[in-house]
């Protein structure tokens, strides 16, 4: 199957090579103003076209197959002022040279994002709220998995490994997600449980993470109710690069003697090695990592191995074919909840020997073809295989689950004229599930979408789009969905952007939600063949404002209305015991506002980000607060650099959630499950660049949960105590 797809892509690639090898080219070098150091990763765009590239490790760039005539180039990178060079003359068959020096402005970002409209755009131009996490932020926090880092994105919080963007999601006991995870733009959600398995994506190979806040089904289909997380993997550098990284961490002893359950110190450690090189037009990146964690709780250990291979073949005319392969193998204990608050780090007796083993792998292929200066074509295929199961007899018996998901999509971006940019495409997906808990199911979906960005005036942009989905995956009755979107952005002054948007979202229930059949703690969990898709409407009004050289402020008010919201809960049986089931239970509304500030202190010597989000998540039927939605999120971080030294600190406040799934507490399944408090966590770190020793080595020490706050994100689950981590990294 994969071979056949690869052949199709190669044919496309070769035909593209033949068709678009004419015109001239532009090449040059981008450096920092003042120090003349090469700048790596600068985005270079040919204005008014779909052509662009990024600078390599020497700061060099080259854009081929440029139509002869005058053109304008735009250079942008985070932390630097955008540079525009107009009237660059390109002649047929010749290469124009353009070197650029960029000025550092630490508090002003010139971030390029791709998720808002399925094409490259400046962050300031997009009409929706997007946060971006750079690879450097993942590294400095030594994030083991992506959700570790997402905890510091304004408006985002994590509950039991599930992502909640602006109150859209609560916690659904491992089934379904109201946030869509994309891997290089392709949906990356397991076929059986509909989960986001963050461990499948090695953090060391991530270029950046884009988080779109608000319903985005008009472009991405199911699951994008609350937002989208797009993981962009690293580009292969033009010069060989090797990276060796090792870390060792120690969990502090529990705060209370009665919580101590092991006489031994609890450690976690890991290593990764990656090598990337380019030979001619072919680039290859190889990555391997190992992560061992003893766990700070009993039977909460894991052993994890990741393998990742990326190849990229460049063709003439800036066309390319990229293939990715990722493998995750892990096993470990299964800690679901505590025994009680007296023994908060020990699971109930029946969970003490639960082990889970999983093998998950994916292959994807991405073809980028430039049809002309005004037309870009991309095609993507993904096969995602998941195989997991309990190794021991446990509370829900021996279980095993196999699932496969195949997704195919094709997108075209057309610059129709100076005012209109059209993005259109289709996608299809096919799922197969064979699981002890969920049964055998297969299904698929087809979708088509189109979006136009209309530049009404130089300051005013209007975007409208619509997508139609036909799905027959988990639910028994096939259904169609029409999801529109509309957005307006207005930039009256340089540094000021007003935006407003409307979008519709929907989510097809996961196989696990519709078809699970099990018995847990003497309670029957039964399937629901009548489960219907849930829907949302999102609205946002926002303002982004640069404040002189001090920094930027972004404020936004938002509201989402949910219909047919799916929740897990108790239902009354006919004369028998109550049972657990996923059901469409309610209408809900989440509204609130968000403010974030990025500014510099001491002439930019210290960078600071502060974000606050208030949400009011209300069940419109019962008028209760929705479960697992905190009302207040506050994040702050400080980062400083002085010569070879760096230092930083993160602070996180998440208010105590008002409502939980209390049936698990009332029935005595999770004793003391109602015990929860505000989450107040401070992490600190310090690092040094040790390359003066002649070895390209850096060292960082992180102390997480500095004040050893004992808190839960999910009921019955104490989060890690203070941890000390030493990270060593060599790059050459």
């Amino acid at each position, binding site marked *: 199957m994969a071979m056949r797809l690869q052949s199709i892509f190669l044919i496309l690639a070769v035909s593209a090579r033949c068709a678009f090898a004419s015109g001239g080219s532009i090449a040059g070098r981008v450096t920092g103003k003042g120090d003349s150091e090469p700048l790596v990763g600068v985005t270079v765009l040919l204005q008014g076209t779909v052509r662009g590239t990024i600078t390599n490790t020497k700061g060099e760039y080259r854009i081929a197959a440029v139509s002869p005539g005058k053109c304008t180039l735009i250079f942008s990178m985070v932390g630097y002022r955008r540079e525009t060079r107009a009237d660059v003359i390109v002649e047929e068959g010749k290469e124009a040279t353009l070197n650029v020096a960029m000025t550092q402005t630490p508090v002003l970002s010139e971030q390029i994002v791709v998720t808002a409209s399925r094409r490259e755009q400046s962050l300031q131009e997009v009409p929706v709220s997007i946060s971006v996490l750079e690879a450097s932020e993942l590294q400095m926090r030594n994030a083991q998995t992506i959700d570790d880092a997402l905890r510091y994105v304004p408006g985002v919080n994590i509950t039991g490994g599930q992502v909640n963007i602006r109150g859209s999601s609560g916690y659904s006991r491992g089934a379904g997600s109201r946030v869509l995870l994309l891997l290089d733009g392709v949906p990356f959600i397991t076929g059986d449980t509909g989960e986001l398995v963050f461990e499948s994506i090695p953090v060391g190979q991530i270029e950046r993470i884009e988080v779109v806040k608000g319903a985005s089904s008009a472009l991405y289909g199911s699951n994008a109710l609350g937002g989208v997380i797009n993981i962009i993997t690293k580009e292969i550098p033009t010069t060989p690069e090797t990276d060796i990284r090792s870390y060792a961490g120690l969990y502090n002893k529990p705060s209370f003697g009665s919580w101590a359950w092991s006489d031994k110190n609890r450690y976690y450690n890991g290593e990764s090695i990656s090598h990337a090189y380019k030979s001619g037009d072919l680039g290859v990146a190889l990555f391997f990592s190992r992560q061992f964690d003893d766990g700070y709780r009993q039977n909460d250990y894991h052993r994890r191995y990741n393998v990742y291979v990326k190849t990229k073949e460049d063709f003439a005319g800036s066309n390319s074919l990229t293939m990715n392969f990722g493998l995750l193998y892990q096993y470990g204990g299964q800690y679901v909840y505590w*025994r009680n608050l007296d023994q908060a780090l020990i699971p109930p007796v029946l969970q003490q020997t639960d082990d889970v083993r999983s093998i998950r792998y994916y292959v994807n292929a991405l073809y980028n073809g430039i049809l002309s200066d005004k037309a870009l074509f991309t095609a993507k295929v993904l096969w995602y295989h998941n195989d997991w199961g309990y190794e021991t007899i446990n509370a829900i018996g021996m279980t095993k689950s196999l699932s496969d998901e195949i997704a195919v999509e094709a997108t075209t971006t057309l610059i129709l004229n100076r005012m209109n940019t059209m993005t259109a495409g289709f996608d299809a997906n096919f799922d197969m599930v064979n699981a002890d808990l969920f049964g055998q199911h297969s299904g698929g979906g087809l979708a088509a979408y189109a979006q136009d960005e209309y530049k009404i005036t130089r300051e005013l942009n209007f975007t409208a789009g619509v997508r139609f989905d036909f799905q027959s995956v988990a639910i028994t009755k096939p259904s169609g969905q029409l999801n529109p979107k509309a957005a307006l952005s207005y930039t009256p002054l340089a540094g000021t952007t007003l935006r407003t948007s409307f979008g519709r979202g929907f989510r097809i229930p996961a196989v696990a939600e519709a078809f699970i059949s099990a018995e847990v703690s003497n309670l029957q969990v039964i399937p629901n063949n009548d489960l219907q898709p849930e829907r949302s409407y999102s609205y946002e009004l926002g303002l982004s404002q640069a404040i002189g050289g001090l920094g930027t402020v972004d404020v936004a008010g938002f509201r989402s209305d949910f219909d047919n919201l799916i929740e897990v809960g108790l239902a009354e049986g006919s004369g028998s015991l109550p049972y657990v089931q996923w059901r469409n239970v309610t209408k809900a509304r989440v509204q609130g506002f968000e403010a974030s500030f990025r500014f510099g202190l001491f002439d930019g010597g210290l960078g600071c980000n502060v974000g606050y989000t208030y949400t009011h998540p209300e069940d419109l039927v019962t008028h209760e607060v929705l479960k697992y939605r905190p009302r207040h999120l506050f994040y702050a971080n400080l980062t400083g650099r002085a010569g070879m030294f760096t230092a930083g600190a993160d602070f996180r406040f998440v208010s105590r959630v008002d409502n939980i799934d209390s049936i698990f507490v009332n029935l005595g399944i999770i004793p003391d499950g109602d015990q929860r408090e505000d989450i107040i*966590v*401070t992490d600190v770190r310090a690092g040094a660049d040790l390359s003066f020793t002649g070895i390209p080595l850096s060292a960082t020490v992180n102390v997480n949960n500095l004040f050893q706050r*004992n808190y839960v994100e999910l009921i019955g689950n104490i989060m890690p105590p203070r941890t000390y981590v030493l990270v060593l990294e060599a790059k050459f």
Partner: protein
Amino acid sequence: MNRVRNAATLLTLLVIFSTGCDKGLGPPDEPSGFSGVIRFKHWPSADSVRELRIVAFPFYPSDSASILLDLAQRLVSVYPQIGQPNLLSDTTQRVLFADSIRYSFSSAGTTLDVGVYNYVALAWRPTAFLFDWRPAGVYSTGPGQFDPAPVRVLLHKDVTGINIDVDFSNPPPKPWR
């Protein structure tokens, strides 16, 4: 002026960063468990009482072969926990040859969980052989009775009055084959 503003901002942030000093959640004041008095009669010689521990089985332990496995899987709760000094080493009261002692078997520091325990007994190791255990007394339906009575451990409650009568000259039968 700028330096003052920067310093004030930095100070504010540092104050915010240090607000997590409170410890947050902690064990409740009242652990879950049961307590009572153990009344002894007819003590044997000291070298015939090597260890005394209270055991709580959620089920009636009718099969000796599975007891070790149940212990390993922590299905059986033991006080004091195995690996820690036994009741004879109690520093708060003299146990050996005492007429009675008070005990409190709680979830703090043991594997005792909330639930029903159908067999609660004082386990006695009379010889040097580590696996030679027998019941010395059982929590029963009445004085002089050997029929075990259930003990229901409630969350954050000390269930009192779980008294055990021990007559070393007339111990209860081993429940297992």
